[in-house]
């Protein structure tokens, strides 16, 4: 160990509370600099919380934390040290972007830390080479196996030469060969950069043996510190795994006993699981290549293999989740059939990634699964209690799984898989990330199930000591089974002392000459990025997010094209569809006069293009009935003696009944009939030439801007603003909340990117898409709909740019406000659909609105842009006339963005 330097991190009385649970209790400790420090302890004792606090990803509740010589409570200090800390959170590839390729993910992080192009290229190439990911540079991160994701996560953490590297269970779920490579890589980096301190939480005690310094934690407090040798000495143990157990308090240790594996009962057993030439192809890629095995009832069969070798795919075929491309999978001698409910009840499955309901409590999850497996209602409570006891879940029964550490979640998944007492258990890396004591407890249970109840267990694992406990194991690589036998036999075949060495030997044989050469120790390019890192606002970081978002948009061409085509389609449907000139109104006449005069009056109506005459009415009853059924919307009653009264100079009264169910339509009808009636009177006066001296003034009506009062010409310029609010807002609505829900928001917490850079970066690609959309809509309006564009195109485009910026900011606002994607979608629909359709002047002018709607209408961006759009299209207006509306939009943008920024947190609460 090098000369003692100042500790890289110092904690003083740090406590952390989640609701009622206490994650950390007044922890005080020092983390020595320039060495590998391991954090070991059972699941759920606050290891992850501690790391997140040191990394600055989580807000400090109480106590003091100094990292790299400054107080982490201070925002200024965090901003300053953030580029020197790298944090890799727990979980498989949680901070990665699944649709981006390996290289693009790395490139994204490199840009966030302000690296130039040449520097990025060399660093990425170097990191990929040393992790053996070079071949997979173009593969989307989401399609990588668990271990490869972890490696990529590490690469992303190492891209900027941190001084403090914080790794939260980095090798969980990683195969032994990759694990070796992983630690070699870290060793190499440490040799190059001796000033780097590494802080690792791990569940693998073999790994902890390599570390310089260990911190054993339990129940939110530090139990012991020291080098591995010191801890071994103190506990008088030979292996760290034992030492770990010895360090635990009495209460936790008591249910731990040395695992004894009873032999299997002799004699032929029936075959429970069988695979015959099972193959799976995804396009050209052969994931599983003619795999075959037979597993007897009650056997524990282990599946070992490098990451991405097809273990998970094989398991999915056995459960019927994936139909095999070739070959057969048989359970209990019957071909697996996805529709066979009876077989499903006999199988328990646990998938590699956590796939229970994060929004249900632990107890609710257990109960739900028991119910779905049709465990008799009377037994459910008992089973749940038994499971809670068996997997030590008692203290977390009412908590939500998303709040629980990985190890505990794994236990819950296991409990769920066995709650219905299945006869076959298919477990995909069930013990990844689970602490040694819990693992032993779990194995004890599996042995019970296997030996006493005859349950067949098919399990994949990366722990060699677990593989040793299996009755037989299969070694798998690149979709093929290399060998199957008892662990001892396999070791004997190779003549190697440990299973790990045997396994690696098999793998190296299979990989053959492709075996990766350790990367040459090329000096990493010196960091020249310090000047950039300190900036409060960096375009480079902003564009890094822009690029990422744009790539994601490009990877999902359906979304982009749906937005463009969908908006064009809607422009057609709505442009034609919202016709405000109410037409084709049905009416009927109740003519009690039946003279030529009364018929002339009725004819006056029939001649109008708005009305369609129906069979005449006979009486009020009929009128009422036909109007109630919606058959007629207007009834005209001409009184008896109408003609006679009219001629005598009396004032006979025409009665009209309107269907008021739809007030807008009724109003329009009223307007029509009043106009028609006035026209009738004028006509009457003109004809009445006997007394020709009198006449009423005529009203010359001129419809301006749209002389034929065509709805289309008025509606198309109004529908464009509507669509450009709804669609861009929905496109950005998931931008932030999706990262929150899927975990990559952590990158905002731990990289130097600021909240504004993050938001603007996300917004830009959607503004670009929105502008493209806008241009297409304008083209369609002018060339397809023949709507004349009378004013300044430049003004229209400028208005569009400002408006789309507002619309995308609205989406982002909903996205920062909500916690779940569902809420974001719903919220965006609420804040856009109704205001844009009803309060922005599309149908009713804003000036005539009332109440709250009027207020919304006055500030809502759509109102302003609607006026700009109609002004430019129909009224030949430009910047000068519409100045105030441009200003309104211009002011809205910073207001919305400021709101977003204030709602977004730079640290987890």
């Amino acid at each position, binding site marked *: 160990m090098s000369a003692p330097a100042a500790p890289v991190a110092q904690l003083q009385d740090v406590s952390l509370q989640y609701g009622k649970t206490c994650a950390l209790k007044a922890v005080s400790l020092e983390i020595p600099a320039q060495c590998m420090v391991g954090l070991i302890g059972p699941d759920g004792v606050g290891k992850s919380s501690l790391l997140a606090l040191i990394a600055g990803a989580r807000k400090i509740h109480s106590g003091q934390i100094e990292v790299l010589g400054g107080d982490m409570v201070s925002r200024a200090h965090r901003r300053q040290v953030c580029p020197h800390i790298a944090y890799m959170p727990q979980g498989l590839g949680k901070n990665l972007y699944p649709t981006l390729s390996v290289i693009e993910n790395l490139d994204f992080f490199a840009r966030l830390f302000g690296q130039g192009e040449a520097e990025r290229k060399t660093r990425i190439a170097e990191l990929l080479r040393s992790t053996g990911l070079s071949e997979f540079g173009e593969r989307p991160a989401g399609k990588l196996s668990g271990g490869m994701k972890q490696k990529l996560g590490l690469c992303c953490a190492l891209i900027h030469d941190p001084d403090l590297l914080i790794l939260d269970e980095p090798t969980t779920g990683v195969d032994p060969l990759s694990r070796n490579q992983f630690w070699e890589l870290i060793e190499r980096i440490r040799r190059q950069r001796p000033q780097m301190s590494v802080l690792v939480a791990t569940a693998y005690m073999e790994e902890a043996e390599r570390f310089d310094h260990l911190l054993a934690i339990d129940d939110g407090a530090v139990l012991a510190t020291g080098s591995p040798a010191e801890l071994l000495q103190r506990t008088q143990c030979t292996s760290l795994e034992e030492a770990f157990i010895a360090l635990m308090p009495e209460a936790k240790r008591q249910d731990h006993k040395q695992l004894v594996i009873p032999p299997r009962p002799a004699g032929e057993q029936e075959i429970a699981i069988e695979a015959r030439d099972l193959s799976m192809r995804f396009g050209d890629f052969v994931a599983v290549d003619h795999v075959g095995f037979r597993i007897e009832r009650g056997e524990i069969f282990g599946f070992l293999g490098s990451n991405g070798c097809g273990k998970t795919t094989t398991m999915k075929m056995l459960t019927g*989740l*994936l139909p095999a491309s070739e070959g057969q999978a048989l359970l209990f001698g019957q071909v697996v059939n996805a529709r066979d*409910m009876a077989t499903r*009840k006999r199988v328990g499955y646990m998938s590699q990634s956590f796939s*229970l309901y994060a929004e249900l409590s632990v107890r609710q999850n257990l109960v739900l699964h028991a119910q779905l497996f*049709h465990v008799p209602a009377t037994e459910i409570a008992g089973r749940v209690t038994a499971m809670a006891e068996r997997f030590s879940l008692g203290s977390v029964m009412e908590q939500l799984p998303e709040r629980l550490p990985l190890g505990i979640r794994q236990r819950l998944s296991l409990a769920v898989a066995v709650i219905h007492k299945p006869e076959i258990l298919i477990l995909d890396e069930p013990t990844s990330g689970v602490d040694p004591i819990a693992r032993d407890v779990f194995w004890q249970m599996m042995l019970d199930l296997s030996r006493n109840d005859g349950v067949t267990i098919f399990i994949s694992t990366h722990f060699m000591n677990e593989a040793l406990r299996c009755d037989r194991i299969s070694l798998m690589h690149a979709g093929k089974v290399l060998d199957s036998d008892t662990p001892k036999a396999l070791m004997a075949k190779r003549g190697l002392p440990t299973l790990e060495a045997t396994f690696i030997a098999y793998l190296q044989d299979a990989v053959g000459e492709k075996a990766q050469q350790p990367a040459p120790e090329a000096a990493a390019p010196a960091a020249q990025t310090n000047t950039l890192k300190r900036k409060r606002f960096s375009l480079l970081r902003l564009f890094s997010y822009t690029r990422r978002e744009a790539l994601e948009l490009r990877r*999902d061409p359906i*979304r982009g094209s749906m937005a463009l085509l969908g908006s064009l389609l809607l422009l057609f449907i*709505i442009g*034609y*569809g919202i016709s405000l000139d*109410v037409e*084709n*109104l049905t009416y009927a006449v109740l003519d009690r006069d039946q003279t030529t005069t009364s018929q002339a009056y009725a004819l006056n109506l029939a001649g109008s293009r708005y009305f369609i005459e129906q069979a005449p009415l006979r009486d009020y009853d009929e009128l009422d009935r036909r109007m109630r*059924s919606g058959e007629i919307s207007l009834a005209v009653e001409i009184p008896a003696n*109408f003609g006679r009264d*009219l001629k005598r100079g009396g004032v*006979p009264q*025409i*009665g*009209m009944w*309107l*269907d*008021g169910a739809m007030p*807008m*339509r*009724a109003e329009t009808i*009223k307007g029509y009939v*009043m*106009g028609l*009636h*006035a026209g009738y*009177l004028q006509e009457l006066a003109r004809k*009445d030439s006997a007394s020709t001296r*009198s006449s*009423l003034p*005529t*009203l010359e009506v*001129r419809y301006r*801007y*749209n002389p034929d009062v065509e709805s289309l010409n*008025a509606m198309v310029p109004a529908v464009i603003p509507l*669509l450009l609010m709804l669609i861009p807002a*929905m*496109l950005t609505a*998931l931008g932030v909340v999706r990262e929150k829900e899927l975990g990559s928001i952590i990158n905002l917490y731990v990289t130097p990117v600021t909240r504004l850079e993050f938001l603007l970066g996300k917004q830009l690609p959607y503004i670009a898409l929105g502008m493209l959309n806008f241009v297409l809509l304008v083209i369609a309006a002018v060339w397809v709909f023949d709507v004349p564009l009378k004013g300044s195109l430049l003004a229209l485009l400028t208005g569009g740019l400002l408006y789309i910026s507002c619309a995308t900011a609205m989406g982002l606002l909903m996205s920062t406000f*909500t916690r*779940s994607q569902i*809420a974001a*979608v*719903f919220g*965006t629909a*609420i804040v856009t659909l109704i205001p844009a*359709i009803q*309060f922005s002047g599309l149908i009713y002018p804003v000036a*005539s*609105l009332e109440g709250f*709607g009027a207020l919304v209408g006055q500030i809502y961006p759509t109102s302003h842009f609607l006026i700009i759009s109609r*002004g430019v299209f*129909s009224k030949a207006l430009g910047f000068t006339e519409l100045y105030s509306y441009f200003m309104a939009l211009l002011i809205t943008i910073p207001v919305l963005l400021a709101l977003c920024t204030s709602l977004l947190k730079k640290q987890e609460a």
Partner: protein
Amino acid sequence: MEQLANIFHLGLKELRSLQRDPALLLLIIWAFTLGIITAATSMPESLHNASIAVVDEDRSPLSARLIDAFQSPFFRTPQRIELSEMDHGMDSGQYTFTLNIPPDFQRDVLAGHSPAIQLNVDATQVSMAFTGAGYIQMIGAEEVSAFLRHYRADLPQQAALAVRVAFNPNLTRSWFGSVMEVINQITMLSIILTGAALIREREHGTIEHLLVMPVTPPEIMLAKVWSMGLVVLLATALSLLLVVQGWLQVPIAGSLPLFLCGALLHLFATTSMGIFFGTIARSMPQLGLLIILVLIPLQILSGGTTPRESMPELVQQIMLVAPTTHFVDLAQAILYRGAGFSTVWPQFLAIITIGALFFAGALLRFRKTLAQIS
């Protein structure tokens, strides 16, 4: 029996998830209370507060009388402007109507000439253009006749017009607006909740977990249909009773239970649509976009915003596929016109058919899409 139990338990699970999302609950409450009140009370009468300006070149008692006739609530107080201001005022959207009374107007009227008044209408405000012109024409004729009655005996023949409005005598917009808003919220919420719930299960891998259990796709779907349908139906019933009838004092002519039956069927259709979209979209961003693209025409073209019969034939035909079209139809018939089941059964039938088609479509796609995610 076991199937029913599965559907029940999975549905309960949906309700529990909903309960864990306070922001979503808040939005639902907003949608069914203040959202409805806002939309209902903001809608103007079609001719309401219309801005009118008058260029009075006559300045006679008759022209003054005419100008005074334009009164609230139909019109804002008329602005007297100069001829030169007229164009700018209309261009900037300041006035929807401008009336130009020519010089010597009164004299010409009394002399029995037929002088022309020019009325300019901003035809981009289509909703007001016609109605307003009709009103102004009527008002003009009435005022001039009344004026003439003082001076002359040989009036032209007169007939009065009495307009009576059935079902909603004062044409109160909130009566219509509130219920249409309830329908909008029902549609929006049910489609989003089910569609997004399905995508969430896919994105979190929980659906995969369900499919290794003795649970079938129809059960998973029906669970979402009943649970989300129940939430929305409850919200609807409460909203109609407390907000629409209670707060907004909208009289409901027909049978509320009959309407809720219709709402129930409508929910079956919309939740099935939601699930169908959930099987088409591959991710939440895609789903969000798909939903908004569908919701826009559903809200605008189902007859709740503008009357259906004035839409082009083709659009009318297309919109028959949408359950909302039939639902709006039956809602208007039941709630305002007091129609009974014998009148609205065709709409009930149409909604059931549409719902069944979407449900079948979703079922068909369910397994296919699941193969893609793993």
